[in-house]
């Protein structure tokens, strides 16, 4: 095992990795930008090296600076966390060339999975279902014939396309010829290339992913699934395991598909195979993430495995200490991503100083956080500040504990997604797991965020009492914060107030 590991990341994931390293007696090296000198991850590591100014393009994304820090401190391995350089194949290669272990897959596997076309090819070779589609099609008649095999609804998509240009949703066979021609014309106009393909349109899909781990000795095991369908514009907000949408048969087939893909790709270390699952329980390979996921703790809680420990062991050459049959879920778990965003204002990011922090605690609660009382939330990085992870015997107990924990959790100084969770965890559709990846986009701002406050009259009285004491008693120190870090300082708003 390594004696010293450099953690090429910041925030909650750097803190989380440092904890397991310390448990294993491994010394940790933090890297930090000028904006992060005060950050929790610097305090939680055994050594710390400055790598540049605040912008990540000048610090956390600079491979040379990170490798220099590793060399300077004598680190033997680099854990990239997620984001930043975690899926940068060139960084993985440079790390290995510098004689250090990269805690993740080979750069070749990262390159392969980073290329959507090659990843899809690999999935097909591994007999993993992909979204049914055609090669480029030239005319409407051929399209109609091909459409029979795919079924409706389907998408006509420009091969050179992006951003919805040259794309048409086709509901039935009658509409195909017209929309096919429109798409070709638009593709020609937009990209100078009229080539289009047909692809099955997955309606109301769920996002369900499988955690896999693979050692350097050819062993690949999946650690069950995570249901991640609560998303806003493709950003996950809540993840849970197991998915109550899967039965044992489907779980077993999807898990086998994930293992097969990883084996085919000679994948090493921890990775995640993401699938879309349609309401009829058909699943389709979406992509593979070649790193530790934000949501890995839910898998840890239902399997009892420390994934970071396993990553370190695999990277140092150990064999997997279990086989597939050993992996049995115990209970259920859910992760809530607490970000510094205002869910009532379309999740606009919020910066400022954490004036007060009291995390939820007690039975079934795990906290993976990157902040503490006094921390500054700066605009430079991802707004994820803390993860609240809840375990229990079953989904019902997890939901109850999560509701309690969200109510208990106190963060003053920035807007957070806690109010989103407070309402979401009580939503009948979420409680019934009757959701899909577009649920939040369809229902939050238009309906859930504007729904009246429950127990409004009762809470209004309390609010009036508190506001009146605050106004009437200048002796009481207020919750005011310096102008440069105010919750009110948000997009445009402060300027507007200033202009009044």
């Amino acid at each position, binding site marked *: 095992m390594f004696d010293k590991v450099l953690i090429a990341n910041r925030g909650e994931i750097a803190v989380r990795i440092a904890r397991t390293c310390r448990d294993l007696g491994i010394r940790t090296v933090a890297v930090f930008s000028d904006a992060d000198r005060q950050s929790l991850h610097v305090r939680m590591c055994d050594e710390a090296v400055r790598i540049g100014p605040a*912008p990540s393009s000048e610090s956390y994304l600079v491979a040379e600076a990170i490798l220099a820090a590793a060399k300077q401190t004598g680190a033997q391995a680099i854990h990239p966390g997620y984001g930043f350089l975690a899926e940068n194949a060139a960084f993985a290669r440079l790390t290995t060339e510098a004689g250090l272990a990269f805690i993740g897959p080979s750069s070749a596997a990262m390159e392969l999975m980073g290329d959507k076309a090659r990843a899809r090819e690999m999935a097909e070779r591994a007999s993993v279902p992909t979204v049914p589609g055609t090669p480029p099609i030239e005319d409407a008649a051929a399209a109609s014939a091909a459409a029979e095999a795919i079924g409706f609804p389907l998408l006509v998509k420009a091969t050179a396309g992006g951003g919805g240009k040259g794309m048409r949703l086709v509901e039935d066979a009658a509409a195909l010829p017209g929309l096919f021609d429109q798409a070709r014309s638009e593709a020609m106009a937009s990209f100078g290339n009229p080539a289009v393909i047909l692809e099955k349109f997955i309606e109301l899909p769920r996002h369900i992913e499988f955690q896999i781990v693979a050692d350097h000795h050819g062993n690949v095991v999946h650690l069950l699934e995570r249901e991640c369908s609560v998303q806003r514009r493709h950003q996950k907000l809540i993840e849970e395991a197991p998915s109550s949408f899967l039965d044992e048969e489907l779980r077993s087939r999807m898990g086998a598909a994930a293992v097969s893909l990883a084996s085919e790709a000679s994948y090493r270390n921890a990775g995640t195979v993401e699938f879309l699952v349609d309401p009829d329980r058909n699943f389709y390979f979406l992509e593979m993430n070649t790193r530790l996921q934000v949501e890995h703790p839910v898998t840890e809680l239902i399997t009892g495995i420390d994934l970071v420990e396993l990553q370190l062991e695999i990277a140092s050459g150990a064999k997997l200490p279990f086989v597939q049959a050993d992996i049995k879920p115990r209970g259920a778990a859910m992760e809530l991503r607490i970000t510094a*965003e205002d869910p*009532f204002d*379309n*999740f*606009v*990011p919020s*910066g400022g100083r954490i*004036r*007060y922090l009291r995390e939820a605690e007690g039975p079934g609660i795990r906290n993976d956080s990157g902040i503490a009382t006094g921390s500054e939330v700066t*605009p*430079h*990085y*991802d*707004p994820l500040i803390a993860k609240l992870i809840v375990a229990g015997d079953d989904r019902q107990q997890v939901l109850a504990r999560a509701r309690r924990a*969200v*109510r208990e959790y*106190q963060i*003053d100084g920035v807007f957070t997604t*806690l*109010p989103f*969770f*407070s309402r979401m965890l009580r939503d009948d559709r979420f409680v019934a797991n009757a959701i899909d990846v577009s649920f939040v986009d369809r229902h939050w701002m238009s309906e859930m965020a504007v729904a009246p406050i*429950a127990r409004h*009259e*009762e*809470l*209004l*009285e*309390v*609010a*009036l*009492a*508190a*506001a*009146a*004491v*605050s*106004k*009437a*008693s200048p002796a*009481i*120190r*207020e*919750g*005011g*914060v310096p102008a440069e870090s*105010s*919750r*009110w300082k*948000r*997009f*445009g*708003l*402060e*300027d*507007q*107030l200033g*202009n*009044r």
Partner: protein
Amino acid sequence: MARKTKLYPIDGGEAYMVTVERAASGHRASSEAPDFDAHVATQGPGRMSVVTEKGSYEVSVERRNGEIAVKIENEWFRFNEERESADIAPRSRARAEVKAPMPGKVVQLLANVGEKVVAGQGILLFEAMKMQNEIRSPQDGVLSSMAVAVGQTIDARERLFVIKGNDS
């Protein structure tokens, strides 16, 4: 010494009248409409514990620019300290300059220079902290100039665009 305190709903309705007096371990706050009697204990900046006959509540209070925002069980209640008179009510100004609130990148322009816009209308898409956000017009008027282009990286407080008011 009891003291009457007025709080104005943010939406402009009738003011609430709350009586505040010192009490053991904190303050007593009471009102007739709505009818309540609460004990309020303060612990640290902006953090309060409120106990009424109905229940025990943990509350966070923030004050800024004449507004009092109260958070209870992840719900927000907002009051004005003073009634905004007609004189100081928001109105269209001759010129409103909108600046970038934090460093980021311009992703898309949503309005063209010379276009008539209304308060709250999205003018450009701005990416910061990995998220896209609309920067909106603070008032009705005309988008008189655009200081940035798509793809441009912007520092905090850099000017984005100017809205000229209808009055001007």
